[in-house]
């Protein structure tokens, strides 16, 4: 198959296992995102794919060719893999001009190819800087050069290591969009590493959430956000409320929880009567004077796009339980006020048992 | 990168490998402990007379190891004292040579009985005495240097220098280690300054008034007294009386400069011819005239200046015996802490 395919990969540094039995693949034109906190092994996976780290266990295939398989002694060096890699610090060559940096990977480029690259440079607004040296550029400009450089040799797969972490927040959105359009145009299979859920959700076609060297969940941004499979994923990709409960009849689409019955879209096929936990995103609550839940507001945080409330339940079931609720920023409410609300099922899901010490 | 490295290595091998071929006929390869500027006129004359080219490298240490590591590289050795000849002989690196010429030119006491090495010139280890501050006859023996009356008046180079080590070894050979140690302690007690400099520097110190008596090899006197380029040295020489010590006893300690053929020499005959030449009339005269040394060959005249110092009685003890005691002598210097003298005032 074409694109990047990683199967059964494990890796250890000095006896410290950082990647455990990881398998996934990225198709051409797809942008897959490895999401996780620092130290979860995502950068190691990237370096393994690039060939910068010798593979210890598993196989890595690029466009149908096995490039690393320690069991058969295959270790294609990075220069033979046809991968593009963009580093977090960009790693621009300080002794070369922008043009020399970009053309570094294509020493014998045809005139047409060079013209295409010139075009790409111009499209990114970098034409004026061709003969400048990297240290004279701003962070955003350096990022563009690094991307152009990685793409210039037309790699089969592109690896991006935290490509936007060095940028100002204002600039980040713009550059993300810019990058995305460049990637889509090139049709390359892209694997991006990030610790920023927002970035992963907004850019990726598919997200691989990693925890302690393992892939915890794999899915589209929507799946990951709406239906996190574990408490770890639920908490890492945004705010959530985790409650214990019991699965009711599947036809009911409801879970009985410590705060009473809650509508739920995803039962994960659990049988009636199974003990479970559910994750309710703060967006899944709606203020409703006729809603079944009554609570008192304990604190209010203004967040711009929404207002985040911490409330304490007043009803008979689950009295004292605290919940996080996001509401419309226009709602005029104050601390200690009593409110009523209901749960809409869009952002409610049954998750696997929370790990004893999991979650942020 | 790699190509450049390989290429430069190749070029080196070719360029210098060819330049280094020194094994053609008509050559002799010489390791010399004596400075090239001292021996060059002799070697030039040898080449002129015989057509044999002399390749020479001068070094004052490490030659024994070099001969051992690359046997056959050198054919002959030229040394400036008995010690290095003896060490090489002990290491079985020398070739026994039988030559009528050498045996008739060199008296038996100045060559190895089995022909392992041959002395070429003699130098006495004598006393330089201040004419102004010491009466004639005040110092006449090595033993006088240790006499308490000389306190603060003696200058000498490092006790570890080969010339001094040989002198001390000769005292051990004659009088035993205990006596030699006592003598060395006595000399140390009489020093005017920390041992150091070369033999010439002792003369300079006497002239400047730092001390009154020094120990030096004979030829230095000749070189200073005739030094046209450095008139100051003539003054140093003029302020000094040269005394041959122990004339009423065992005689003045003499050392040789000598030569030998190496065991694995490739140009043996040429090497023997070179040594024969160096022991012959022409070379012996030149040694005497230019370097103020005493020729080993009987009948060859010494330099008039050297002659003016008078005849002297040389210590006739077997030089190999003296050389044998060099290790003991060197250890004695450590034991009495000779070089570590500090003036008491």
């Amino acid at each position, binding site marked *: 198959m074409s694109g990047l395919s990683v199967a059964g990969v494990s890796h250890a540094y*000095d006896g410290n296992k950082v990647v455990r039995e990881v398998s996934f693949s990225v198709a051409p034109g797809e942008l897959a995102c490895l999401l996780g906190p620092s130290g979860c092994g995502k950068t190691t996976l990237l370096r393994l794919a690039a060939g*910068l780290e010798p593979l*210890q*266990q598993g196989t890595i295939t690029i466009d149908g060719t096995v490039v690393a398989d320690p069991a058969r002694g295959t270790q294609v*060096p*990075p*220069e033979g*893999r*046809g991968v593009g*890699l963009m580093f977090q*610090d960009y*790693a621009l*060559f*300080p*002794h070369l001009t922008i043009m020399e940096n970009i053309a570094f990977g294509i020493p014998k480029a045809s005139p047409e190819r060079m013209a295409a690259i010139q075009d790409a440079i111009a499209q990114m607004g970098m034409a004026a800087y061709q*003969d400048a*040296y990297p240290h004279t550029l701003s962070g955003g400009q350096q990022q563009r050069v690094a991307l152009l450089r990685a793409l210039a040799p037309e790699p089969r797969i592109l*690896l991006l290591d935290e490509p936007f972490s060095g940028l100002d927040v204002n600039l980040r959105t713009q550059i993300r969009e810019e990058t995305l359009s460049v990637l889509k145009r090139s049709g390359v299979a892209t694997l991006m590493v990030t610790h920023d859920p927002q970035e992963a959700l907004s850019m990726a076609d598919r997200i691989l959430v990693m925890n302690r060297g393992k892939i915890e969940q794999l899915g589209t941004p929507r799946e990951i956000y709406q239906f996190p499979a574990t408490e770890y994923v639920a908490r890492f990709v945004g705010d959530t409320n985790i409650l214990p409960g019991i699965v009711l009849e599947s036809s009911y689409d409801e879970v009985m929880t410590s705060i009473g019955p809650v509508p739920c879209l995803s039962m994960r096929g659990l049988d009636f009567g199974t003990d479970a936990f559910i994750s309710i995103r703060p967006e899944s609550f709606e203020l409703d004077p006729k809603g079944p839940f009554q609570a008192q507001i304990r604190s209010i945080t203004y967040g711009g796009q929404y207002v985040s409330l911490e409330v304490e339940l007043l009803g008979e079931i689950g009295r004292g339980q605290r919940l996080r609720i996001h509401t419309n920023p226009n709602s005029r409410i104050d601390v200690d006020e009593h409110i009523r609300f209901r749960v809409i099922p869009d952002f409610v899901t049954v998750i696997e048992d929370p790990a004893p010490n999991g979650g942020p | *990168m*790699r190509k*450049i490295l390989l290429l*430069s290595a190749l070029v*080196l*091998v070719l360029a210098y*490998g060819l*330049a*280094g*071929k*020194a094994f053609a006929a008509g050559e002799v390869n010489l390791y010399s402990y004596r*400075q090239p*500027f001292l021996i060059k006129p002799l070697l030039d004359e040898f080449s002129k007379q015989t057509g044999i080219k002399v390749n*020479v*490298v001068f070094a004052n*240490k*490490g*030659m024994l*190891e*070099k001969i051992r*590591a690359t046997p056959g*590289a050198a054919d002959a050795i030229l040394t400036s004292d008995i010690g290095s000849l003896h060490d090489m002989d002990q290491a079985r690196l020398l070739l026994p040579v039988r030559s009528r010429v050498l045996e008739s030119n060199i008296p038996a006491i100045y060559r190895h009985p089995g022909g392992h090495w041959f002395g070429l010139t003699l130098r006495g280890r004598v006393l330089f005495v201040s004419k102004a501050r010491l009466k004639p006859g005040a110092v006449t023996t090595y033993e006088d240097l240790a006499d308490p009356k000389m306190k*603060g008046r003696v200058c000498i180079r*490092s006790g*570890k220098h080969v010339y001094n080590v040989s002198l001390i070894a000769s005292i051990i050979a004659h009088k035993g280690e205990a006596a030699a140690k006592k003598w060395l302690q006595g000399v140390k007690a009489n020093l005017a*300054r*920390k041992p*150091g*400099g*070369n033999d010439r520097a002792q003369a*300079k110190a006497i002239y*400047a*008034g*730092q001390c009154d008596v020094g120990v030096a090899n004979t030829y230095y006197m000749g070189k200073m007294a005739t030094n046209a*380029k*450095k008139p100051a040295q003539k003054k140093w020489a003029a302020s000094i009386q040269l005394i041959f010590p122990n004339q009423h006893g065992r005689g003045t300690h003499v050392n040789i400069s000598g030569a030998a053929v190496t065991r694995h020499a490739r140009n043996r005959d040429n090497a023997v011819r070179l040594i024969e030449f160096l022991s012959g009339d022409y070379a012996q005269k030149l040694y005497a005239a230019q370097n103020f040394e005493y020729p080993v060959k009987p009948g060859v005249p010494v330099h008039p200046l050297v002659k003016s110092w008078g005849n002297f009685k040389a210590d006739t003890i077997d030089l190999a015996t003296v050389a044998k005691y*060099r*290790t003991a002598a060197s*250890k004695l210097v450590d*034991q009495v802490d000779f*070089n570590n003298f500090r003036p008491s*005032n």
Partner: protein
Amino acid sequence: MSTIAENLKTTMASRFRPAFRLDIWTGGVLLIAILIAAPIIAVIALALSPSEGIWSHLLSTVLFRYIRTTWGLMMGVGAGTLLIGVGTAWLVTMCRFPGRGVFEWALLLPLAMPAYIIAYVYTDILEFAGPVQGLLRGAFGWTTGRDYWFPEIRSLGGAIAMMTLVLYPYVYLLARVAFLEQSVCVTEVSRTLGRGPWRSFFTVALPLARPAIVVGLSLVLMEALNDFGTVDFFAIETFTTGIYDVWLNMNSRSGAAQLATVALLFVVLLIAAERWARRGQRYFHTTTKFKPLPGYRLSPGTGALAIAACLLPIVLGFLVPTGVLSLYAWNFYEESLSANFFLFVRHSLTLSAISAVLAVAIGLFMAYGVRLSRNAGLRAISQFASLGYAVPGAVLAVGVMIPMGKLDLGLQTLTRELWGVPTGLLLSGTIMAVTYGYLVRFLALSYGTAEASLSKVTPNMDGAARTLGLGPGKTLWRVHFPLVRGSLLAAGVLVFVDGMKELTMTIILRPFNYETLATFVHQFASNEQLEESALGALAIVASGILPIIILSASIRNTRPGQSARQGT
């Protein structure tokens, strides 16, 4: 249970992880390291044979004095070079005062002065019979040494002074590079926190520059440890004079090799301590924000002091000895010129240039190979191979001859078998031997520099180049080499200048009829007739001046943000 099994699997995996692959780089580094280390191993092997009671003699007599004197020498030279080197480096880098531009490079000049020559010159001037004491006696009517006190030049203090004067440039050089590389921001932070320039220097700039200064200092200490010319001339009993004494006067090669091995162990400890002390210092240049250095403008009074502080080491370490040498050379130029003087100059230049180029190429190759393999064993072997700097020259020369002689005999047998012609002593009979010796001795300079400057290139540069399709060799050539070019040039200059001065190994290892400037000077100097060869000594010094100025210019460009502009 399962965790134990998993742990076991992990440790197994990690044991296999270094994945020692014998590619051209690893194999090349291993081969070169073994070649370069062979002489050191030969010395150690020599030390393994018995040495008939040498140690009991040394223990009961001079050993502790050797240790005490050597320790004193190293401490004295260390303190002296630190004071002069760091002090002047800070002055010319951070302060603005008249003449600073000249001092920048002039402070490096004493590097070209061989220690044995400066010792000779100062002895001539300062001894009892010399002009200074003569004038004093004339002026005050003293006659003997008992009438007055004057420091004895032929003493430990004298040796410390002589070596300090010619060795401080190592510390100056590295301290200056370190100060130039520092971001001004850290100093400014310190100033805003209420610390004056002086306290900022001691609490921020100096600790930051420490790793570099320590590297310079360790070079100085190794030089002081293995110096023979000066200490022998002054009759000071150090470990090195002891080695020669045991070897030549007590005729015990194994005893000498044992002493040398002990000294080597001491150096290994020293280096280990140094590595340990800078274990945390693995930072790369990432910031691109470098402002011009502040340049404290000094008041006329302080400026005058600064000028004096910079001028003194130049005058004493360079101008005075060069002046005296010129005087000698003027009077005795015939003796020098009459010989094949220009041939000697050519020999010296050829040897030093070849060695400098080879040392830098090999040092870079090894440092890069170690970086590629990331193998601790390979790194250790390479570091061992660069220990030659710490072994006294003549001992190392003996170590060089042993493997070289063996190789020669093998080659000879081979060519005789193959073509029926013996090649002669292809290696030990040619300048290959000297070049090899120089490499063994000076690899510490080039390997150390290459390793240090490569460590400043972030590994992401390697990654970027490799993923852009370049193999390791091309990556080295197109990325690393341009980035570390300045430092390599500096290392090359150091090896070149050291090669011009090198004497002991040249004497022993050179082929027949091969005279360099240093050996030419030596044949007279060994007879205390330096005057006759002063022109040669002057030529050694002169040939170092131009490279030193180039060196100084290349250091200026080491300041980040400045070097990046080169190469359009």
